[in-house]
């Protein structure tokens, strides 16, 4: 056969079959899967790039060298040579005088070019709020409202800063790197660097931080950081915002997991619908395929014709699904904006091809086995009205699972979670089929079993065991999804939102010296405040793993390189920190002498560390050695003081360390914090309230986006149920038609059909409820670090919903069978 002829035949078949609705189910299932996949892909991409953009704002630069002494000029020279933009700032606490009042304030003197990233928000003398990349002109300062209030000053007033008198030109509302400053608890003032010398405030021993900020392309920045790292003076460090705020990353990652899992549920449901649609298509076309074989089409020609038909379907579904996916994603972005800036960057163009790829992967993965069945249609089938044999091939499950797995790992972004989800689904299907088989076996009718009456309904299920099992398994998957949506989702999302407690600590105190420990806790006790737990902390750099020196260049992943390059905060304690959970290995016995480390699991994953590995850290020049004895899941979003690496106290006995803690400051307790700062001037107090507010807002908005995704899953569940019920309908019609011909009354048939549908629904609902319970419990525990979660209400709910859904969906059969003449029913099949 000429290629053109098969192409033409395929097109002709496609056009006619699309018109006749033969391909509707397949098309709908594919479109929905592609919509789910592309919407999440688009959305994740936009959020990722949006967050990366936003992250640089927190630094006002791409990277910062932060030092307690002015940096050598070679740093700026090298940055310029690397083609980077650069600017500098000096931050220090000092008194400010105005109208006879003196207030402690944080000064920030900035050079031209500030801020390199992000924007400053100001209110000028005209009362108008403005946002832009500005800095104060020489001779003027910007003060925040706290400072203005305490000084009782207004815009236009003059203030005295050491030896200089400067004019307050604007009220400072927000500055990009404000949250990163250590002294952000006290009123703030920004001035031009040109005026700094005139103040005479910077002297030997001033507690000033000198920051060299750079911005440029990623290669430029990493080249410069590599250069700078080699030459860092004592007391200097590199700042890169990506690791600075694990809370934000953690919330975002969980949000992405939720979205990815929901999308994957949709895709899996759609895949089930696709498989059912293809199977139905095959069984309806079996004889036609045989006719074509009789007419002389070879196996490969026949395969080519139907491959082309399916390919067209995939292409059309890919285009429609991508367009819909873009729309849904716009909806997601609309619900989620506000926390990554008012507008997200546009999705990357290559993603538009992802819909096509997804449609092709799904269709190929799910229909290749069917295609091979098409190739093997015996021409003899034309003479026999036989039901097509299910294509028996190991390829079917392997291909289907492989293609779903590929899509899942791409969507969720974490292969192990994708694997877990697919394994879970397989287990569920196996258990569902097993349960259905047991039920069918248990009611296997003996000879002479009733054909009329309620009991006959159950017996009828057992008379066609495989049909019943397939229908139960297919329906229970979608019902499980439905139950998950109705019950589990609400509770999971609520629990997730609750994991960010209203009472989360919002203030960190660092640099508490060991000798201050007692005075510090007493200060809290005397003020009637809850006494926070102080944890020791040292800065440590990872030197070697299993005696192999660690080099950044050994790691391909950028995140891993940066982790190796930076210093960790390392702590030690006897007991597992509150909220932490050991995921592998064992926590040490309190008081033991073991040289043991416990490592956060995400860090371990990134750096490829495992229990039993020997780590060596450099702590202020002293090497510290120990083995990893456990990995921990850390609730970053708790805002308690958390550590990537914790050691058995025995490892650090006698080593000097400063202490840190976190506690909650209510609005009315602000004066207490001010007194704390006065009392302990060397202690650094950091207000993270803004970050908490931001993370909470992010979680709330992501939760709304996830609900939209769940809506899509719900539609997919309806689609699968529809596909399953179509086969159910067709199988029941013939029987009922025959029974009427044999003289059964409408009432008798109605009873049998209803009984059969109710039994089917109840059993399906039960299986689905058990599945939803397991899914909820596993997801809570394994994916979201939430407590075990089991809801027994699901069982009665599942049974009732299953009975109602199946019976309602089957109602048209009963109506059609009892209202139309038997011969019409028989002929219509």
């Amino acid at each position, binding site marked *: *056969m*000429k290629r053109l*002829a098969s192409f*033409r*035949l395929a097109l*002709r*078949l496609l056009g*006619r*079959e699309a018109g*006749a609705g*033969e391909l509707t189910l397949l098309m709908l299932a594919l479109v929905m899967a592609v919509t789910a996949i592309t919407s999440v892909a688009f959305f994740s991409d936009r959020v990722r790039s949006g967050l990366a953009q936003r992250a640089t704002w927190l630094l006002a630069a791409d990277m910062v060298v932060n030092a307690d002494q002015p940096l050598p000029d070679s740093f700026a020279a090298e940055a310029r040579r690397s083609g980077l933009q650069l600017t500098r700032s000096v931050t220090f606490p000092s008194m400010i005088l105005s109208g006879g009042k003196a207030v402690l304030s944080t000064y920030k003197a900035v050079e031209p070019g500030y801020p390199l990233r992000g924007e400053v928000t100001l209110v000028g003398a005209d009362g108008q709020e403005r946002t832009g990349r500005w800095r104060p002109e020489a001779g003027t300062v910007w003060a925040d409202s706290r400072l203005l209030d305490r000084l009782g000053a207004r815009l236009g007033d003059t203030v005295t800063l050491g030896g200089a008198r400067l004019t307050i030109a604007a009220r400072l509302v927000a500055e990009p790197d404000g949250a990163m400053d250590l002294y952000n608890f006290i009123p703030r003032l920004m001035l031009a660097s040109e005026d700094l010398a005139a103040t005479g405030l910077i002297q030997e021993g001033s507690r000033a931080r000198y920051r060299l900020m750079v911005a440029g392309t990623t290669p430029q920045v990493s080249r410069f950081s590599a250069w700078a790292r080699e030459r860092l003076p004592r007391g200097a460090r590199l700042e890169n915002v990506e690791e600075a705020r694990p809370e934000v990353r953690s919330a975002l990652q969980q949000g992405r997991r939720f979205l990815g899992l929901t999308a994957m549920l949709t895709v899996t449901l759609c895949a089930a619908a696709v498989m059912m649609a293809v199977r139905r298509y095959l069984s309806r076309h079996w*004889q*036609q395929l045989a*006719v*074509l*074989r*009789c*007419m*002389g*089409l*070879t*196996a*490969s020609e026949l395969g080519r014709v139907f491959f082309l038909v399916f390919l067209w379907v995939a292409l059309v579904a890919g285009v429609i699904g991508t367009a819909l996916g873009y729309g849904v994603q716009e909806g997601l972005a609309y619900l989620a904006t506000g926390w990554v800036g008012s507008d997200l960057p546009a999705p990357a163009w290559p993603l538009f091809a992802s819909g096509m790829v997804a449609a092709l992967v799904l269709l190929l993965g799910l229909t290749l086995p069917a295609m091979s069945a098409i190739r093997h249609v*015996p*021409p*003899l089938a*034309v*003479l026999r009205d036989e039901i097509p044999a299910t294509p028996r091939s190991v390829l079917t499950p392997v291909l289907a699972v492989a293609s779903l797995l590929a899509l899942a790992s791409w969507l969720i972004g974490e292969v192990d979670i994708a694997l877990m989800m697919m394994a879970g689904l397989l287990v569920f299907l196996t258990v569902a089929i097993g349960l259905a088989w047991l039920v069918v076996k248990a009611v296997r009718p003996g000879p002479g079993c009733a054909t009329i009456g309620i009991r006959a309904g159950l017996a009828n299920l057992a008379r066609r065991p495989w049909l019943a099992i397939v229908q139960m398994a297919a329906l229970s998957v979608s019902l499980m999804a439905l139950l998950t949506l109705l019950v589990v989702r609400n509770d999971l999302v609520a629990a997730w939102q609750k994991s960010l407690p209203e009472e989360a600590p919002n203030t960190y105190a660092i640099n508490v010296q060991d000798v201050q420990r007692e005075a510090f806790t007493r200060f809290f006790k005397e003020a009637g405040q809850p006494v926070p737990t102080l944890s020791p902390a040292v800065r440590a750099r990872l030197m070697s793993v299993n005696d192999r020196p660690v080099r950044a260049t050994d790691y391909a992943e950028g995140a891993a390189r940066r982790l190796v390059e930076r210093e960790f905060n390392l702590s030690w304690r006897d007991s597992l920190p509150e909220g932490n959970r050991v995921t592998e290995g064992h926590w040490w016995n309190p008081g033991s002498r073991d040289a043991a480390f416990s490592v956060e699991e995400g860090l371990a994953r990134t750096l490829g560390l495992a229990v039993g590995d020997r780590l060596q850290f450099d702590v202020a020049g002293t090497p510290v050695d120990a083995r990893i004895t456990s990995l921990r899941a850390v609730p970053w979003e708790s805002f308690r003081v958390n550590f990537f690496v914790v050691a058995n106290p025995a490892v650090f006995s006698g080593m000097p360390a400063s202490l840190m803690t976190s506690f909650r400051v209510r609005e009315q307790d602000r004066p207490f914090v001010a007194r704390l700062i006065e009392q302990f001037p060397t202690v650094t107090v950091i207000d993270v309230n803004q970050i908490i507010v931001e993370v909470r807002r992010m979680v709330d908005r992501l939760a709304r986006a996830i609900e939209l995704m769940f809506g899509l899953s719900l539609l997919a569940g309806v689609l699968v149920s529809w596909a399953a019920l179509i086969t159910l309908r067709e199988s029941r019609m013939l029987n009922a038609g025959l029974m009427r011909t044999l003289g059964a009354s409408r009432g008798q048939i109605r009873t049998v059909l209803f009984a059969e549908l109710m039994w089917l629904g109840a059993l399906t609902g039960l299986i689905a409820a058990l599945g939803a319970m397991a899914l909820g419990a596993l997801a809570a525990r394994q994916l979201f670090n939430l407590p075990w979660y089991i809801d027994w209400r699901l069982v009665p709910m599942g049974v009732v919903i299953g009975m109602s859904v199946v019976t309602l969906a089957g109602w048209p059969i009963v109506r059609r069978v009892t209202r139309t003449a038997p011969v019409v029913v028989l002929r219509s099949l």
Partner: protein
Amino acid sequence: MASSNMNEVDKTLVLEARQLAKSVDFHGEHLVILREADLSLARGESVAIVGASGSGKSTLLSLLAGLDYPSNGDVFLLGQSLFDLSEDQRARLRRDRVGFVFQNFQLLPQLTALENVMLPLELAGRRDAREGATAMMERVGLGHRLTHFPRHLSGGEQQRVALARAFVIQPRILFADEPTGNLDMSTGRQVIDLLFRLNEEEGTSLVLVTHDTELAGRCDAICRLVDGRLNGAGR
């Protein structure tokens, strides 16, 4: 027997079955459907295969047409041993030389009557498929039904379209399986008249499976299947 002599004989034969047998194992039971059947059909000849329901008529037809595998024996179609060929080679052999007519018509429901008739021509790569098919539809008296879909045609009309589809490639041999089985008597007669007329015009050999003895009587030879044995190859 000299091989050259064999070939000479084969040339006149369109179809020849030698010691053809078929048995199946069904639930542990060995069922013999066909025992050592011999049959030959020359160019332009017609043979009717008759027998009771379940006697194995359709099985014999499917073996003769190469749609099924025998347990033993061989079939030569147009001088070619069918079971030396692969499934695809048999398909190519059928493509422009073998026609089929089935009891339940087996038209493709998505294609119009004309497209159904065009299909074999297109499969054979003929450029004049539309013209050829239209002419054939005229010959079966359905020139006014070209754009109708099978579901809008009566049973008799559907079978006439099936005849047009079978004859449009001018086959060397036609296999017909109970072509009137789904038709009333008078429609069935019209279809059979058409079948034999076309058969004669085209000089096609015909293998006709039927349980209608009157219909069988119109063929050159009658073979009767009883208990899996093929009896008599003559009037």
